[in-house]
């Protein structure tokens, strides 16, 4: 039994009501909401959090449609609580990532754009050649394919290079007993951004015993930052690729080339 005696409005009536009562000030409200959402979406998209944006989008869409068709008394209040809950859940689930993005200043170096397709192909071929040679000669190496999203602390632990990618340079950097051979080489777009960088090691205890510190560093980094690591084992010359905290071992040239293509292709649409 309804105490107020009001007849519940249908969704269409509600929409008509909103259109009829639309004022100029509402336009300002719309603009502010839009601007905030657009900026947040852009930041999330730039940080490769597309899935999160889609989840939030679907969540808002579903709750919005539900409130439109239901006759709850204060839908805006419920929406506010639900959105708040959603944000709290996301913040607690992705605490590390959020902290990283908030507290670590991102590298100042602007991402190089790859105008010509040939440039990209040259970069891919140079990296593949260097990795192949190092694998053949059992030279240990770790190459990070960064999307300009490495914490500055990591880059600053090494030496800034900002040089063109060449197989000879990569091989020279990893040549044993040289000053930079022990750290990671960071590739950002068509440039070698830095070399000799120190990376966080994976804390997982269940990793295979024959994975050395280079592999652990690759896994450790890729589980927190959205980058790809190419690792060449010093003992066996085996090429591995780490991504999202997972490592694929015994990678052949085709897979390596495919990974690099994916990296540069993604870079072109970014």
């Amino acid at each position, binding site marked *: 039994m309804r105490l107020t005696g009001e007849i519940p409005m249908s969704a269409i009536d509600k*929409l008509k009501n909103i259109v009829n009562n639309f004022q100029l000030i509402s336009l300002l409200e719309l603009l502010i909401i839009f601007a905030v*959402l*657009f900026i947040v*979406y852009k930041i999330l998209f730039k940080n490769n959090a597309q899935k999160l944006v889609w989840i939030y*989008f679907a969540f808002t869409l579903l709750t919005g449609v539900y409130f439109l068709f239901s006759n709850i008394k204060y839908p*805006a209040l419920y929406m506010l609580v639900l959105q708040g809950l959603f944000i709290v859940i996301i913040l607690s689930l992705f605490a590390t990532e959020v902290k990283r993005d908030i507290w670590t200043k991102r590298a100042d170096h602007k991402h190089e754009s790859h105008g010509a397709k040939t440039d990209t192909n040259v970069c891919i071929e140079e990296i593949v050649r260097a990795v192949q040679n190092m694998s053949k000669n059992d030279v240990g190496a770790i190459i990070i394919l960064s999307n300009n999203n490495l914490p500055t602390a990591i880059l600053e632990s090494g030496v800034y290079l900002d040089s063109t990618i060449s197989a000879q340079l990569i091989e020279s950097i990893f040549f044993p007993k040289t000053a930079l051979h022990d750290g990671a080489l960071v590739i950002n777009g068509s440039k070698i951004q830095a070399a000799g960088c120190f990376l966080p090691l994976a804390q997982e205890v269940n990793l295979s015993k024959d994975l050395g510190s280079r592999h652990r560093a690759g896994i450790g980094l890729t589980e927190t930052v959205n980058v790809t690591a190419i690792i060449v084992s010093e003992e066996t010359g085996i090429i591995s690729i780490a991504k999202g905290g997972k490592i694929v071992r015994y990678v052949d040239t085709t897979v390596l080339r495919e990974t690099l293509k994916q990296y540069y292709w993604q870079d*072109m649409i*970014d």
Partner: protein
Amino acid sequence: MNKDKSSFSKFILNNIKPFLMALVTTVIVFIVAKI
């Protein structure tokens, strides 16, 4: 000219998805706030 065109299409590609998603979310949030 060709470069301009490609950078423009890149800009559109970059921004169209967040733009459309933000637009739809804005409308939903606005409607819920007003009903």
